[in-house]
């Protein structure tokens, strides 16, 4: 079975995003970028499925600027087989990303799409669900466990209140939650090998899908700052403050 893994290049999760003074967006100049952590988890899961002999080929796709090739190479170093960059120099909205990914899926005909539940830049948590709707495939979001047998996947999902288990017929879209696995670090030899793997580059225009923005960003502002607090010396002081000053007890 072929697996398609969409990955996004985002700000490194250890970096605190800073708003530009003119409120036009978040300052990404000279900021460390990395593969979205949830996408890393999706790649890792695909590699594990390949190691188990369930998956035969892992195709990694990213929609983004030329630099997203680095992100794809990282996924190839983790064990992906081949990459595809759909180059777009403007940031696409989740709906447009889903439409491009649908076009890629139509071409590639994967048996499974494994992706992150959320990109930590826009925090949309939307593309997987939209892609699955556009393809008319079943979805299993927020997966913390995936077992594939024959033509279906048993997926345990993290939901409010606990866990839910679904059985989805393949092809399906599964989005990864944090506890699905712990992604490996690519070894140096694998990083070297990944440089030779096939990475095709296409232009977003090649797919002929409607990517016109539906949302205009009017401004990006800093959230209100919390006023700094105080340190108390003892638990008794704490309770006294909570009672009289804060009035929350």
């Amino acid at each position: 079975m072929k697996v398609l893994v969409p990955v996004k290049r985002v700000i490194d999760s250890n970096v605190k995003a800073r708003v530009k003074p003119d409120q036009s967006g978040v300052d990404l100049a000279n900021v460390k970028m990395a593969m979205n952590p949830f996408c890393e988890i999706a790649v890792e899961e695909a590699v594990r499925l390949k190691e188990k002999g369930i998956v035969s080929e892992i195709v990694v796709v990213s929609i983004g600027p030329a630099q997203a090739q680095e992100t794809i190479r990282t996924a190839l170093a983790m064990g992906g087989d081949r990459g595809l960059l759909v180059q777009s120099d403007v940031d696409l909205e989740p709906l447009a990303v889903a439409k491009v990914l649908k076009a890629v899926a139509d071409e590639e005909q994967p048996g499974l799409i494994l992706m992150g539940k959320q990109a930590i830049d826009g925090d949309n948590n939307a593309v997987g669900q939209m892609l699955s709707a556009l393809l008319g495939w079943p979805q299993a979001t927020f997966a913390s466990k995936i077992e594939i047998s024959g033509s279906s996947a048993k997926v345990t999902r993290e939901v409010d209140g606990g866990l839910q288990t679904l059985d989805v017929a393949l092809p399906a879209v599964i989005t990864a939650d944090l506890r699905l696995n712990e992604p490996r670090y690519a070894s140096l030899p694998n990083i070297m090998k990944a440089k030779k793997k096939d990475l095709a580059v296409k232009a977003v225009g090649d797919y002929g899908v409607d990517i016109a923005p539906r949302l205009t960003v009017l401004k990006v502002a800093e959230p209100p700052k919390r006023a700094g607090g105080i340190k108390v010396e003892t638990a008794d002081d704490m309770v006294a403050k909570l009672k009289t000053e804060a009035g929350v007890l």
Partner: protein
Amino acid sequence: MTVLVIADHDGKSIREDTLKTVTAAAQLGDVDILVAGKGVDGAAAAAAKITGVKKVLVAESDALGHGMAEAFEALVVPLAAGYDAVLIPSTSQGKNIAPRIAAKLDVAPITDVIQIVDASTFVRPIYAGNALETVKSSDAKKVITVRPTAFKPAGEGGSGAISKIDAGAGAGAGGAKFISEEIVKSDRPELGAAKIVVSGGRAMGSAEEFTRVIEPLADLLGGAVGASRAAVDAGYAPNDYQVGQTGKVVAPDLYIAIGISGAIQHLAGMKDSKVIVAINKDPDAPIFAVADYGLVSDYKTAVPDLMAALKKAGK
């Protein structure tokens, strides 16, 4: 404008997330509410009483009862034709279904909205809440998930008309089957709705210690229990306790963080709490930068001391 709110409920009652979503919806126009599930008479009756709700639409099927996204898509997409906006609480279920419905309607979903500026302009947090984005939508129809902590719950006193509707073609749920569910039953208030939340972090070191330290304090205060990702990953607490960018967002009157460092991803889920208390033995832990009251101490002595002080103060 007419707005359809998709209720989050447990069959018998309506969750507070829904009441808060109704408040957001009422800022846009007339509100109808959809109560979809299986065995939802109690929830439908409760929905009818929400202030401002005109109509309660009730749809029942097994697939809806299990929250199957495909079934919700099949039900809501045709219904949406009669509305200018569909609003859904940003719960795990809301996040599961809203984008799917939006894609079918060819609409860009706007997720986690914290402020409604006007009928087409909304504010939402991005980058773990380190920035707030104001977006204007050019879609004729809007599909929005509402971050409940940003709105006050709608009151009671309405008298909406209840009508049953067909569950639609989605009853079969197209290729996805429900197998099982493990929902933790608890007498504590729901994490998202609790006035007081007590959260534990990696410092607890084990599930036994987490239970021994965090739960009695939460129970003494009548609060809910939360956790950092590190505590959940290590198996000290169940997954749905996770507070943060990728877990639950909470904004209680009082949030007590114990042995939690205060990573940006954790702060994203609790920094809008009214009062924040932190107990951490590291005076430089970033959590102290957002805490109103910090106690630099080992939790092993600080938590028993705090419980004693609370009892002395009549708790």
